[in-house]
């Protein structure tokens, strides 16, 4: 095994950054795919895989993908909520892998939200 050089420390850190961001629960953008029974039936798994592939391809390190239960609007599943740190979360409805790709490209990577697929801005109030 070759000896580590000081530059290698940074390289390893960069390679592992996404893993560590994941464990820290940090990250600039949070993608939340709703995985209720309705979501699963409507194909939310495919949406998750799409987001994962896109994350892989774009090599982003500060995006985390989480899943949650039914968001309540079962007829418009699959749904995902995307939250860029410091901005209001946006809910997207009736997703397909193609739409997910566009949303990832525009919203997650570039911060412009995709009005035509969006349902609403903001989240319900939790009492």
């Amino acid at each position, binding site marked *: 095994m*070759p000896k580590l050089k000081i530059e290698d420390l940074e390289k390893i850190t960069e390679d592992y950054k996404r893993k560590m961001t994941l464990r820290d*629960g940090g990250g600039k953008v949070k993608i939340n795919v709703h995985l209720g029974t309705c979501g699963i039936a409507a194909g939310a798994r495919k949406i998750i895989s799409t987001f994962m592939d896109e994350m892989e391809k774009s090599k982003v390190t500060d995006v985390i993908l989480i899943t949650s239960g039914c968001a309540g609007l079962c007829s418009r599943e699959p749904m995902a909520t995307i939250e860029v740190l410091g901005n209001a979360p946006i809910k997207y409805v009736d997703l397909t892998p193609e739409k997910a790709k566009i949303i990832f490209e525009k919203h997650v990577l570039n911060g412009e939200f995709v009005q035509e697929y969006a349902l609403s801005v903001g989240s319900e109030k939790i009492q």
Partner: protein
Amino acid sequence: MKQYTINLMVCAGTGCVSNQSFEIKEALEKEILKHNLQNEAQVVTTGCNGFCGAGPIVVVHPEGIFYQFLKVSDIPYLVEEHLLKGRPVKKFMYVPPKEEIPIPRMNQIPFFSGQTLVALRNRGMIDPEFIEDYIARGGYRALAKVLTTMSPDEVLNEIKKSGLRGRGGGGFPTGVKWETCKKIQSDRKFVICNADEGDPGAFMDRSIIEGDPHSVIEGMIIGAYAIENIKEGYIYVRMEYPLAIKRFNIAVQQAKDNGLLGNNIFDTNFSFDIQVRRGAGAFVCGESTALMASIEGNPGEPRAKYVHTVERGLYDCPTCLNNVETWANVPQIILKGADWFTSIGTGDVSIDPWGGSKGTKVFSLAGKVNNTGLVEVPMGITLREIVFHVGGGIRDGKKFKAVQTGGPSGGFIPESLIDLPVDYDELTKIGSMMGSGGMVVVDENNCIVDMAKFFLRFTQDESCGKCIPCREGTKRMYDILERITNGEGKEEDLDLLDELSNMVVESSLCALGGSAPNPVITSLKYFRDEYIAHVKDKKCPAHICRPLLTFTIDEKICLDAGHGCGVCKKNCPDDAIIGERKKAHKIDPVKCGKCGVCFDVCNFNAIKID
């Protein structure tokens, strides 16, 4: 590298491993495969999480959902609900004592949110068997920094300025120790990591090693660089810590493979190597001179220290020995600076290195407290905060009696003193000590005389026998305590105990004898009433010392509530219970062996203990 969206951190510290965390890991992997989630979810084993009382523990990231008391049979449901359907499972979450609503996230649980992590900063976040995980969280940066940008003197000064004091118990300023060792001329010098943690109820060092072994290794390399002329280091790990030994061996091998140990580290002129030694299995080997004797292959016996080990230690060469936690603090001080370190803690160390206690301290919280486990808190926090906030208060709503700090060498601290800030000097002032950081919480149902006897029994067993005060003195003290708890104590015994304690402290060869009487001294000082009750009234207020108890049956309850059911009579091994069915029963005090079986079996609380 493969990227996952979910990391399941399975605690693999000794506590959780003995609660089947490896089986849980297997079950998780099996279920993940079953649901075809292997590309999304990764199962990671980590070191001790600290919340050992709630083990086995799994934390699911990125949300940081904390699951406790898991069983293998819970896993299919957990994977299906949380990973497949995205619904965290409430019934496996932590619920605070006396409350009903669970707290889902780890960082919202008071046990975790009340802590400040320095030595344990990587706990639960990395897999201790992967050097890359350590590097990815800033590991070996401090080493790179000292080797490329700092002179050995600058490193030493930074440590001196930080006011770091030995975490193994004595609280000797680390910088002063390093400096003394540095000044002595010798061709061969050593650094040693003392991982022979032996106090009953203490597991701080074990947890650091099991969770983050590289931080200790990095600290040692930096120490060797600062002291200069050191090519060899030893890690002496307690024999009873097989997992810690394994993780150290893996970590040392990884460091060697990556050129972080060995010749010309980071292509500089600096070379250093470490060997791991398994301990000899005796408590006294945690004492520095006994430890060095043991590494040399000699019997683990201490020697008088008129010549300190920094001058003549291992193989008669200058040796700098520090505890696991002390070494683990070093890389952080180098990276973040001495000023950052001194901003945490008490006192002022800028002129006098003994002037305060800086940084954090890891304590193992055990005994009658709700949240048992490992906590790292800033120096100067009060005992009340540790016990009642982080520890979640006393179990079953019982009344707090005392905290025993510093293990068998420490002392009992009564309720009147629990608002005192915890640091080296305050604890010493009241007759206890920081020790390595054991903290046993005692409630009203513990007998203080019995506890003192327990700790003395331990030190008496572990006394190596080389010097008479420790070997014979602790034995006689133990005999007296035995007499008192058997109801044969006299009032003069208390004075005799006082006198013997002082003699043992004053004249023992090493710190084992020098501190062994501390539990007796402090309990006599703060809980003399309880001793008096034992010797004068022949009563044990906590109902622990059986020979001092009298069992009676409340005849009214026995008859009215139990209708003379006779269960006690049937179960009494001494045939000491008299009475016919449907009539009140009685205990014959002469025959009664005070075993307490009647108390346990009576369904009507008719048995009274006094």
